[in-house]
């Protein structure tokens, strides 16, 4: 970690994504944007997460999909939001009115 600039970034709602969270953010990104990966995740989340090389604590956080915990690990908040919404759109398509 660097100096004051890094501290300010840590306090921002949309903070710099730490390199340590790259795999986690990649998983959220692919849940959001990669339909084939999202289908594999919905079929077998554990296998899909292992495919991306996620460690056990990260996999546990994703299983619970708790926003605060994921963001605490360095997940980008928007990716958490939209990955969750895309999973819900797949699981409950009838819940959404289409315009």
């Amino acid at each position, binding site marked *: 970690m660097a100096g004051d600039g890094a501290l300010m970034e840590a306090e921002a709602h949309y903070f710099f994504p730490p390199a340590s969270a790259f795999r986690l953010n990649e998983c959220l*990104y692919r849940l959001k944007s990669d339909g084939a990966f999202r289908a594999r995740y919905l079929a077998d989340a554990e296998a899909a997460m292992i495919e991306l090389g996620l460690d056990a604590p990260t996999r546990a956080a994703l299983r619970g999909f708790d926003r605060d915990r994921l963001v605490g690990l360095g997940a980008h908040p928007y990716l958490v939001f939209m990955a969750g919404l895309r999973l819900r759109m797949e699981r409950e398509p009838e819940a*959404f009115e289409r315009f």
Partner: protein
Amino acid sequence: MPLVAAFACAHTPQLLLRPPTEDRALVLRVHAAFTEVRRRLAALACDAIAVVAGDHIEGFFLDAVPALGVFVGAEASGEFGPYRYALPVHEPLARAILTDGIERGFDLVYSQSLRLDYAFYVPLHFTMPEPAVPIVPLYVNVYLPPQPTPRRCHAWGEALRACLDGRPERVALIASGGMSHFPGTDRYADPDFEFDRRLLQALADGRGRETARLTGEELDKTGNVELRTWITLLGAVGDARAELLCYEPSWHHGNAVVAWPVTAR
């Protein structure tokens, strides 16, 4: 003919796919404002629509995060849930903006192969006239710090206007984003509507230039990181007074649709 119209609007996905958490009447009121934009775009008979939008980490992931960019492919395509879209790009205009922008000192990234984010698509879904008009997608990084400063976005908008003023096409400009919202954060249900209202008043007064003095920290604190797209547009429209077509605050989002009169310079 240069810039002939300018609009800014929200693009929240719940306007396209409404879950039960969203007030249907509110969503329809925003749609009505989009319909008014569509009517105006049709009447203007423009040759292209340049859309300034933030990328929701869709076209660009962490392998490359450009501050400002232009899509110069033949067609811009993407998907969002059940929606699949492919929009023709006005290639001569896209290339001119890219080349002219570089000449004017903006080190723009360009791409011919990107998934078009729904931030571009949602406004076009509701406002694209018939027959459809080709687009030019203009990227601004809004979600991955460090983002371009409001000052830089405003300057880019000024340069964009100068470029458009030298072109033969009749171009409409749409800024897609905002207003206050905090997706994925603990402030999601607590947007800063007071900031939005003060800002809308400033825009109605023709004081859009003041947005160039905002800081990135202020935008983050008020849920307005996406306002960078509007600030870019404000650089292009100068001191024109905004016309508010709607401002509909939902439980998580300040949904605004705004128009600016554009006169030849």
